């Protein structure tokens, strides 16, 4: 595996998109692209697999719903089946309408928070994480494409310059 990458900086999202397509056509491997904002269609052009984070959210929501049902069934029906204002506490279903608001809230709570935590873990984001963008301009208005290098430096430099890169430089892969 090559330990060097070539970094090309662009200052326009449309130029970046056409560059990605050309690099892909030339069968080079795009290691990474850093952009200041979500460029729509970029993941497709790069060939990134779709994210499965929505699926995890659904599963977390199911967990939340289960927790809510088990908790309220135990507390209200099994542990202390008391008569509070004539509410029927004989079975879960007989007093179910009163449990719906909390069943709903817990579903949302679990689905939302656990998904966000999953996102932070998968994308490696946490409070003391050091930023890894190789150029500070990539959070302002520049776009940086990293292409892996395997001895074809000159050819690749030429290709990237042709696609409209403003700056092409070789750097160690981090």
């Amino acid at each position, binding site marked *: 595996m090559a330990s060097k990458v070539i970094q090309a900086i662009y*200052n*326009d*999202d*449309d*130029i970046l998109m056409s560059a990605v397509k050309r690099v892909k056509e030339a069968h080079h491997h795009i290691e*990474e*692209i*850093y*952009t*200041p*904002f*979500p*460029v729509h*269609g*970029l*993941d497709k052009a*790069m060939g*990134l697999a779709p*994210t499965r*984070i*929505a699926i995890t*959210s659904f599963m977390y929501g199911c967990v939340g719903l289960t927790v809510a049902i088990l*908790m*309220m069934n135990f507390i*209200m029906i099994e*542990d202390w089946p008391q008569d*509070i*204002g004539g*509410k029927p506490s004989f079975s879960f279903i007989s007093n179910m309408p*009163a449990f719906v*608001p*909390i069943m*709903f*809230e*817990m579903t*949302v*709570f679990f689905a*939302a*928070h656990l998904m*966000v935590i999953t*996102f*932070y873990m*998968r*994308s*490696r*984001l946490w409070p*003391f994480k*050091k*930023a890894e*963008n190789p150029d*500070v*301009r*990539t*959070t*302002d*208005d*520049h776009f940086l494409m990293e292409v892996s290098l395997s001895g074809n430096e000159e050819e690749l430099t030429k290709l990237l310059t042709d696609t*409209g890169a*403003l*700056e092409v430089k070789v750097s160690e892969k981090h």
Partner: protein
Amino acid sequence: MASHYEAPIREPLVNGEKSYHDVTVDVAAPVEGRANKQWWIVFSIALAAFLWGVGCIIYTISTGIGVWGLNKTIGWAWDITNFVWWVGIGHAGTLISAVLLLFRQKWRMAVNRSAEAMTIFSVIQAGLFPIIHMGRPWLAYWVLPIPNQFGSLWVNFNSPLLWDVFAISTYLSVSLVFWWTGLLPDFAMIRDRAVKPFQKKIYSLLSFGWTGRAKDWQRFEEVSLVLAGLATPLVLSVHTIVSFDFATSVVAGWHSTIYPPYFVAGAIFSGFAMVLTLLIIMRKVSNLEAYITRVHVEYMNKVILLTGGIVSVAYITEFFIAWYSGSNYEDYTYLSIGAATGPYWWAFWALIICNFIVPQTLWIKKLRRNFAWSFIVSIIINIGMWFERFDIIVINLSKGHLPSSWSMFSPTFVDVGIFIGTIGFFFVLFLLYARTFPVIAQAEVKTILKSSGERYKRLREEGTSLAGAAADQRTALKPVAAKAPSGKTEIDKEKQSQLLNTIGAFDPETDQADDLKKINGIGPVMEKTLNQIGIYKYEQVSKMSENEYDLLDAITGAFPGRAQRDDWAGQAKNLIN
């Protein structure tokens, strides 16, 4: 590119000749600049109100709820009125960031950050009231189903007040992570621009090391979409559950099945009014007129008109049903003939005028596009929606089923003081937010710039290709020789030559300039100053030692001792290798 196409009938959402870099600069400006005198004046007033409210809260808790104006008949008045009012205000924030995201409304992007901030700050205010209106607030933790030493004594899940606990805490926490996740790229933008090391550290911490990889963005967008999908039913459920506090009771006027949707509509109505109040001021104060435009105000006024219409229909329905039910007890409810002519007639008519009549003026296009009128209407709606909750709670309680229990309510200074305190607290938080947070979601605005920005709309109409149109003169790479010294900093010639003698001069003919910004502590401004002095290369910086640092400080006059502290020479050496 075709993907930026937008129908020409649509008005631009970003006015002026804004480029991507302009968005960055405009959003970062309030954060990077210093607060002016007006800010400090308003902040001091808000802080004083907040502290006064804290005093009133301490007085209430230490003396007893009896210091409020409540009586045996009217056990809920200002406390729950204010609670519902604040929760309602919060709802617009989620509506803007979630519902409008689901509907792919581009205009939300300039307003969602502030609207979400408003949600969080107003839900915090709302969250105070359920605690402080308790007789024994130090036992508030008993509302949580925690296993305990009382044979595990649990809570009763039948009560809407317990549902409130779950609803409000879920709402606050989900809104918070939604807001924060959206902030990461914007914090990262400020982090990468920061010149002062302390600021850099803080924003590095806040931005969680966001780097903006393609995969991160893909996940980010999916997470935003799913959170929007979750927040939409959440926002509907939260105010529904708040309305259950009343709707599930047996009190005439409260027991009403229309409450859940009617409360939610009212919440959006009042919330949008508050967003307008805040943003009409903020666009001026923070110089964001190009982003929060007349179109945004008009769109928000249209939402107000819609939700205000829903609320008005609900009023008419309540009024009709009170008569149609044939129930005698309904005669004295908050929307009945009895209420209009009874002792609380002024509260009834305040509601009708503020919520029913005044907002109808927004049907007139001239008025709903007028900043001053929108501002006035938004304030009137906030007052009217406070009266709506007051009427619902107090009028309905004052004349219940038993005439011997009929009563009136008048607040004490403590009731009023706590309310003023929460307003103060809200503005303390909001003012601090406006100075430290990127108040516009710049990453999102940049995604719509090419389709909805005035400049790009013009370019497209002229038939120019938008590819390459994002390049900005100021951030473009220019040959170093072209950089003429602007003469901003007066340079002491003698010290300059002394400095250059030791570290070596830069020859633009043969040498290549380095990116000095790579050195920690050198920002764009400092780099320019260094370039003016004649320092372009890492090699030059690496030769600096104490004597040269002193000379440099003497020349620039900025940040004395800074270069030494950051060890520019050491950093530059590393960068050469």
